[in-house]
């Protein structure tokens, strides 16, 4: 048996055609102004090269940069300026700032947006949801098919260690550049896609290097309200081409306000906690001496989820110093017919943003009746059961505990550092195949 759900795919590019029909191109090169060999040679795109911040804690570089009192960081201006430019050039399917948004009264402050335009004009398509890792398929839509005008800039690590910006840099395909492109169906202002090493055509699958790039983007923007999200296949990613999403929303997400319980301090000083009193069970990774430390731990955790076929969502917040990891099973329940009709009728696809508390609603009725209880009910369906979550946690712990450092360290770690200390040896051994959320064929 193969598990599938039917849903309306999100249109992220103006060149994302219905299967089997040709989308018109109006400009440039081969007549398509695309990112393929025929057009890319002559292309000039802005290039932002960031400084690799090796020491986060040492000189307070990131922490200090994040204060909203400071003038706009360069990357912030670049994203916003280029994005507004595309707004005024009419590249988006709708003006997201015309979409009504409100904070739902309640303890958590879930945010509801009424977006009636996002899912129009598309036929529902079948998506396989029981395989987190699927091979890249060149015949399906991928980001090498977007138009150059949809790309905002190239994003890479600077070679000489200083921030660099070139307003018109050639695209060096051999050098595997990463692109930042608009999402033409934005769910908030500044909605962009970060596509690591775009020309390598990587499938949606987290690796250490790509996650580090995403953390760097959050750190460079230096704006706590610019967050990045990641959805695995089976957790509402619709395009199997490695990408992160990001946008601006200048208020805290409910998930960021949820209390946490510390589980452990890991290699490089990364703090690992568990979300408490939140409808979706999840883990939080914070801090660390360097961005590399944080990205190593989180990517190891994601890789273990991928290898164990557990769909998951990731939210990168607080300027890249905090990462939420949320395994989920909504799509699978949906495929098995276990989600009640009332929830399905809302057609809300609980991906990283929804799980973080930003709900994009398609029907006026749902928007008007939005309540904390409704949001909670939906998200509770997304969450793994407590029992299953503990199994998954053990799995993750096993993957990262291998690198857990001995307690030789610093003044920031008082003795009773570990709250509700968990000894990894008390975890049950991981049993593959006991996963209730994975239906085997």
């Amino acid at each position: 048996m193969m598990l599938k759900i039917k849903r309306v795919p999100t249109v992220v590019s103006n060149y994302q055609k219905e299967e089997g029909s040709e989308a018109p191109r109006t400009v440039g090169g081969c007549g398509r102004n695309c990112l393929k060999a025929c057009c890319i040679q002559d292309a000039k795109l802005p290039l932002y090269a960031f400084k690799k911040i090796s020491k986060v804690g040492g000189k307070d570089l990131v922490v200090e940069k994040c204060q909203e009192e400071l003038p706009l960081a360069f990357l912030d201006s670049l994203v916003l300026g280029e994005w507004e430019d595309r707004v005024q050039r009419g590249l988006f399917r709708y003006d997201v700032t015309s979409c009504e948004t409100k904070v739902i009264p309640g303890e958590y402050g879930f945010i509801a947006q009424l977006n009636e335009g996002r899912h129009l004009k598309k036929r529902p398509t079948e998506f396989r949801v029981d395989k987190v890792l699927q091979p890249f398929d060149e015949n399906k839509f991928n980001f090498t098919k977007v138009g150059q005008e949809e790309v905002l800039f190239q994003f890479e690590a600077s070679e000489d260690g200083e921030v660099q910006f070139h307003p018109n840099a050639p695209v060096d395909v051999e050098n595997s550049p990463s692109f930042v492109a608009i999402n033409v169906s934005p769910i908030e202002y500044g909605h962009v896609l970060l596509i690591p090493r775009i020309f390598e055509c990587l499938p949606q699958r987290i690796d250490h290097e790509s996650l580090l790039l995403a953390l760097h983007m959050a750190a460079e923007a230096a704006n706590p309200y610019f967050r990045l999200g990641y959805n695995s296949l089976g957790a509402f990613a619709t395009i199997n081409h490695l990408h992160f999403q990001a946008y601006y929303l200048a208020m805290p997400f409910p998930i960021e306000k949820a209390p946490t319980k510390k589980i452990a301090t890991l290699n490089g000083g990364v703090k690992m906690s568990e979300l408490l009193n939140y409808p979706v069970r999840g883990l939080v990774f914070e801090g660390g001496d360097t961005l590399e430390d944080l990205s190593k731990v989180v990517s190891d955790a994601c890789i273990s989820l991928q290898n164990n076929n557990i769909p998951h969502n990731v939210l990168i917040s607080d300027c890249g110093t905090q990462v939420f990891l949320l395994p989920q099973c909504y799509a699978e329940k949906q495929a098995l017919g276990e989600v009640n009709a009332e929830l399905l009728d809302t057609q809300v696809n609980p991906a990283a943003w929804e799980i973080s508390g930003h709900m994009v609603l398609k029907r006026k009725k749902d928007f008007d009746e939005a309540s904390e209880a409704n949001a909670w009910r939906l998200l509770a369906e997304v969450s793994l059961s407590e029992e299953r979550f503990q199994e998954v946690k053990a799995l993750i712990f096993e993957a990262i505990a291998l690198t857990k450092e001995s307690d030789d360290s610093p003044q920031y770690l008082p003795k009773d550092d570990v709250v509700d200390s968990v000894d990894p040896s008390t975890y049950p051994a991981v049993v593959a195949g006991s996963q209730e959320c994975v239906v085997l064929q």
Partner: protein
Amino acid sequence: MESINQSLDKFYSPHARQSLDELSEHFTITDPSISGHPIVFASHAFLKMTGFTRDEVVGRTGAMFQGPATCRRKVMEIREAVREEREVPLHGSSRVCSSVAHEFVFRCCRKEVCSESLAELTRVSSANQVLEHDVSVKLSTTLAELHLLELESEEEPREASGDERRSAATAMDNIFSVLTHYSELTGKLVCRKRCSIPDVGLLSSSLIISLGRIKQSFVLTNPHLPDMPIVYASDTFMKLTGYARDEVLGHNCRFLGGRDTDASTLHLIKESIKTEQPCTVRILNYRKDKSSFWNLLHISPVRDASGKVAYFVGVQIEDDYKNEDFRRCWRPDMKQLSVVGVVKVAVRSLSMSAGSSKT
């Protein structure tokens, strides 16, 4: 720096400093109406505790006291409290003036005795709001932050004890009674809670803080008020035009025009405002001293969370071709568009929650 020094004197008279200094509490006062939301006053006790001199603190932001071990969550709580213009509520307490504990590890780098040691601060913040009667579109706010020193160092944040809450409340009372006293003398109305004057022209101080980050000449105008007055003008706009903020707030932008300003350009602007479309024009404008300059002006509508146009933002760039470097690196229109982007994000986000802005 001048505006920072004047901030306190203007509303509370210079004598207020002296009385504030006599208080034994550790506290700072910040002014969100100044770009960067800087500290405008630090108490004697606070300086003594932290080892900084007044000059090192005034003009900077509270962020300077944070370090690698600072609890990020508490920083977020403070940020949100300021954004929503509420006091950080002390855990479990319903008192108006109480606040929650913001705890962070503070590095006493200035004290020779303990260059590597850690001390813990409890920061309690509260806000009072000052409304000027004479200029209806101007809002001024003063935030007082109280710092309680703790001797034991702990990494994990902890809740303030009942005693601490009570002493924080008393301390806040003391600070406010000084401020209230002196504001009566200067004739400016001070109240602890925001006065509920139903004036649509009033910008929330959280919006002012967000806009204050933008180092670029721009104004916000409100199309829902008679004659579409300016409701916000950036520091750079003041520098560019030579006017004082009081002279432009509440006025329509037409004072920038003059004898040789092209009427057809003005017509174009009017049309784009009417149709709620963005536009870019090159227009001859005049400074306060009557000297003229070519203004590369970009205007765009800005919608609030309800999706309706709430403001128009006008971004000015002096078109003088002097700065070639700048032109090569960053196209001026891109700079204007990023200002539009920041303003759109700020206005939209800050009007989402009922508690945060105009109600």
